[in-house]
């Protein structure tokens, strides 16, 4: 049933135990994201050195989808080069884009392949009103990184 695909155990785990929920001393990049419609909030602090995201802190509040997406994202991009981060962001957004399937080399049966834990969020595709919740952290990340 669709609900079980939406609320996978990994998602609930990241929601209950969000990763990288810390404070950074000297962040080099920052952005605040919020969904005016539903009130979800994601705040990001990043340290980017020599083209690498060396550290990230996430705070915020909201539903399990917005907060677990932010938590998984923070795990996935820590230690990655900006090029890899951009690549991951594009892949994630493509997974969430219900119109663009089949394009961009995405396997329609497994649009989240190559995303690791983040693939768990593909159940959100069946709940279009929740897609913006899943995307919030990533849009905020793009803003923090200035693209």
């Amino acid at each position, binding site marked *: *049933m*669709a*609900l*079980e695909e*939406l*609320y996978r155990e990994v998602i*609930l785990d990241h929601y209950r135990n969000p990763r990288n929920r810390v404070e950074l001393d000297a962040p080099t990049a920052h952005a605040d994201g919020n969904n005016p*419609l*539903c*009130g*979800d*909030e994601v705040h990001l602090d990043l340290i980017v050195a020599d083209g690498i995201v060396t550290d990230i802190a996430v705070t915020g*509040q*909201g*539903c*399990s*989808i917005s907060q677990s997406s932010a938590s998984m994202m923070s795990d996935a991009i820590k230690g990655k080069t900006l090029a890899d981060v951009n690549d991951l962001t594009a892949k994630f957004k493509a997974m969430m884009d219900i119109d663009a399937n089949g394009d961009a080399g995405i396997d329609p049966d497994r649009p989240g392949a190559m995303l690791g834990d983040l693939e768990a969020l593909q159940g959100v595709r069946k*709940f279009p*009103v*929740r897609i913006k*919740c899943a995307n919030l952290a990533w849009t905020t990340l793009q803003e923090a990184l200035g693209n």
Partner: protein
Amino acid sequence: MNDLGNVRADFPILERKINGKRLAFLDSAASSQKPVQVLDAMDRVYRTRYANVHRGAYTLSQEATDDYEAARRKVTRFINADDDEIIFTRSTTSALNMVAYSLGLNGLGEGDRILTTVMEHHANIVPWQMVARYTGAEVIYADIDSGHRVATEAVTEMIDERVKIVSISGMSNVLGSMPAISEIAAAAHAAGAVMIVDAAQLVPHAPVDVKALGADFLAFSSHKMLGPTGVGVLWGRRDRLEEMEPIEGGGEMISDVTLDGSTWAPVPHKFEAGTPPFVEAIGLGAAVDYLSELGMDRVFAHDRELTAYALDRLGEIPDLYVQGPADVHNRGGAVSFSMPDIHAHDLATILDQEGVQVRAGHHCAKPLMRRLDVPATARASFYIYSVREDVDALIDAIHVARKIFGV
């Protein structure tokens, strides 16, 4: 069947299945469903009596005009107003903006205050903030008490000679609380202030007699009281309307127009610029007939009975907090609640899979959410077609959510 009779049979949408489940529509505070009587009334105009109103001396225009003005009289009687006191607007929001701008831009200035409360809908906060920005006046807010009601003294003790406008909701769309409007209106008038009531929830759900209420203006929306979208009502006391300036100019609202200037039509038409939503107003007239036939005392009692039942059953659920008065005294049928381990959006998604339609979010009352210190609430709300089965479906679905979230 429920205590109001076989009303459910008049609402075709209630037969729908949602995600394969029985529809439990619990979002009537946002907008109500429509009975066939309202749909038929509008259909009849479009099919047989349609032409623009107040335009031509020809049969169709005259018939449409007659129906439109008959709808105005129905609304007039429904709230015990006097003739020519009903202005058709687009919604509660546009009605409140109309009074806010007209009174604000023709009288408010530096040092003046507009008094409202922290529990208001954005429609009764933002227009005042905008007017304050233009005029230098200040908006001040009465607080709710620990029981989530607005105590009369909390408002009246803030009224002094600086307060020129008091604008308060007659029934909160989040908490259900019903402030004592007539007592507050008396205090406002004693201080020379104008009393405005956001009655978007009050008029659909409780008997309203504007003479007994003692306010100067009242705003409400058709779509929350069985009528169509696109039309709302501003009631104003005749003398207030006479002295009030229109803020929208255009066709239909004038007495004469020359290149040097214009004069206004008599009330209420001076406030109805352009082609009004007259078919919608006629639909609202049919809605008012429907509600009048049921009797608003019975409508209120029905909501109250279901609210009491919902409060009771929600009380059985551990870790669930009702935001709003815990009993039905001076309370309408909007029941907001939050669960610390399950966000309101997750709850709404899961409930939806069970056919239960509730609103989750800030309900256009962000200052109240901050005051309650919750990011969002889920809200169940009732109307004449609601039954205990809907509440039971809600409770069962909440248990499904608890299971998924392991609480």
